[in-house]
């Protein structure tokens, strides 16, 4: 068990890939924003890569261990300390009952991940332990950790002193600027050539009005192709309006003139166009960026995006441990 001394800003239980199989009823996958970091934290402590761990956002929690165990902290640098002593990131370490792990604000990145040998063992909800905050389901009573809660942990035989190779760690941007891959589609033909060129060439600022459902972007207005105007009334008359359709997770959803990247807790369906989609291999960058930082989008093909996901799967494995 982990006792919550301070909950942090929004610390939640997440597993990977999350709650699959219910998109047709409107349930999002949830799961970690940066699955690269959670998966490797799990591998470090001897868990399956997809086991449940803690996602800490902007300001991490303080947790007391109620029994001996092995843990790992990865992702953004929340300056973790064990009983006041700095703890290295991307390394497994032994903890004793009564010791306290304290995370602070994210010095680099935006989200830190904590894995515990044996995994977090909250009751799964619709097949996953991931927290879906907005609906109040999954995780610990459906929401972020609260002071005084005890988070259940399974039995695990982790080994201390295992490290993730330098090259296999998330290369978190230090320039407040991120290159994010996008695959054109499904509705890229609603945007005119000038609009496509603009989208891929200008700076897009991540708005503070962003959360695990959507990342809002600030930038120039969009321009549209003939298709966005010459359409039946059931689409809705605004150019970004389309007859309601299923949304890919990662879609860049154009609501009026505001692009919103639909992320892990996002909607499954709606009536706005999705000209581009962020592939899964780029999600970790969304998870590690802070409001005010800048995205530059780079178009890749479906094949290229799938190759990136495959490469990431190889990285998130025992092969990356030294």
């Amino acid at each position, binding site marked *: 068990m982990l006792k919550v001394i301070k909950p942090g800003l929004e610390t939640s239980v997440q597993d990977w890939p999350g709650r699959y199989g219910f998109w*047709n009823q409107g349930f999002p996958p949830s799961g970690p924003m940066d699955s690269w970091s959670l998966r490797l934290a799990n591998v470090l402590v001897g868990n399956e890569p997809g086991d449940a761990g803690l996602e800490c956002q902007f300001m991490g929690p303080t947790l007391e261990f109620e029994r001996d165990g092995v843990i790992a902290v990865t992702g953004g640098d929340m300056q973790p300390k064990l009983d006041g002593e700095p703890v290295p990131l991307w390394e497994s370490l032994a903890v004793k009952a009564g010791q306290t792990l304290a995370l602070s604000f994210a010095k680099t990145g935006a989200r830190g991940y904590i894995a515990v040998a044996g995994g977090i063992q909250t009751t799964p909800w619709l097949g996953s332990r991931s927290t879906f905050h907005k609906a*109040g389901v999954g995780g610990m009573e459906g929401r972020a950790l609260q002071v005084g809660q005890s988070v259940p942990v399974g039995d695990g035989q982790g080994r201390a002193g295992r490290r993730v190779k330098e090259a296999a760690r998330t290369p978190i941007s230090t320039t407040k600027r991120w290159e994010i891959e996008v695959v054109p589609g499904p509705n890229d033909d609603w945007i005119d050539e000038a609009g496509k060129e603009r989208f891929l060439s200008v700076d897009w600022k991540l708005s503070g009005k962003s959360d695990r459902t959507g990342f809002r972007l600030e930038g120039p207005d969009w321009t549209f192709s003939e298709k966005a105007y010459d359409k039946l009334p059931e689409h809705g008359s605004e150019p970004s309006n389309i007859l*309601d359709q299923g949304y890919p997770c990662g879609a860049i959803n154009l609501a009026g003139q*505001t692009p919103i990247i639909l992320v892990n807790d996002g*909607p499954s369906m709606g009536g*706005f166009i999705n000209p581009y989609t962020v592939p899964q291999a780029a999600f970790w960058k969304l998870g590690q960026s802070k409001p005010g930082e800048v995205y530059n989008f780079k178009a890749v093909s479906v094949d290229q995006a799938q190759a990136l996901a495959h490469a990431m799967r190889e990285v998130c494995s025992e092969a990356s441990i030294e």
Partner: protein
Amino acid sequence: MIYEEPRYLPGGDRYMLIEFGNEMNLELNFKAQGLADAIAEQKIKGVIETAPCFASMLIHYEPEEISFGDLQGEMHTLIGSLGPSDTIELDSRLFLFPTVYLDPWTKECVADYIEKITPKQTDPEFVAELNGLEDVQQLVRVHSGTEYWVASLGFWPGLPFLMPLDPRSMITAPKYNPPRTWTPKGTVGMGGAATAIYPEHLPGGYQIFARTPVPIWDTEKRFPAFERSICLFQPADRIRFIPCSVEEFEAIERKVEEGTYEYNIIEYQRFSVANYKAWIGTLDASKRF
């Protein structure tokens, strides 16, 4: 229009959107639902889940198990094997929903949007004018004068995307630009030609002008209607909105809180596509209620 060949569009590295056409037409919804059922039956390798909607279906697949090209091939074959919709006859539950039209809560929400986000004409007046209706009272008659078909669930757990079955009640509206940051729980609204019920206090983009006190999803399953699922509806259900007063709304709200509300569900009817098509063939869609 119904496309001769469906369009297979990529959504990043793990989604495919199949568009069957670009109009609101029960035929297309049957294709989407029929394909989703066929995929579930055949257990197509690499398909994680599907999300059928009015005229399209989204597939979530695992690229480690199936390529985009192979998936497209599989889908082409499956779509070819779907029978004509004319022979379809299926059980269809009818839900009656007490609903306050032109209610104070959505009025307050729209006023808040106008004050804080951007000016716009108030929603019922806007929709009535846009569709050439006499006034907002006629909007209420037209909107509540039809059964709605549950074409799909999405956006939020349990939220139904609804299509009016009576063409005389087909009205259209643009979606908000920018979207609202909040909408009262139970709000009934429309965008494009679709109507929806908001299961919770949520952001949204539809024009809003009514509210129902009856919950449509329930994680605690407090009512027998949720025995099978925490989402009340399933595709092929039908809904009718029954106009009621604010006082009735509040009385029902209290019953819901106490757990004594009795859901009004009619479960003996079957929906025949052939009968439906024959019926709408006799109607003049320009004749409003």
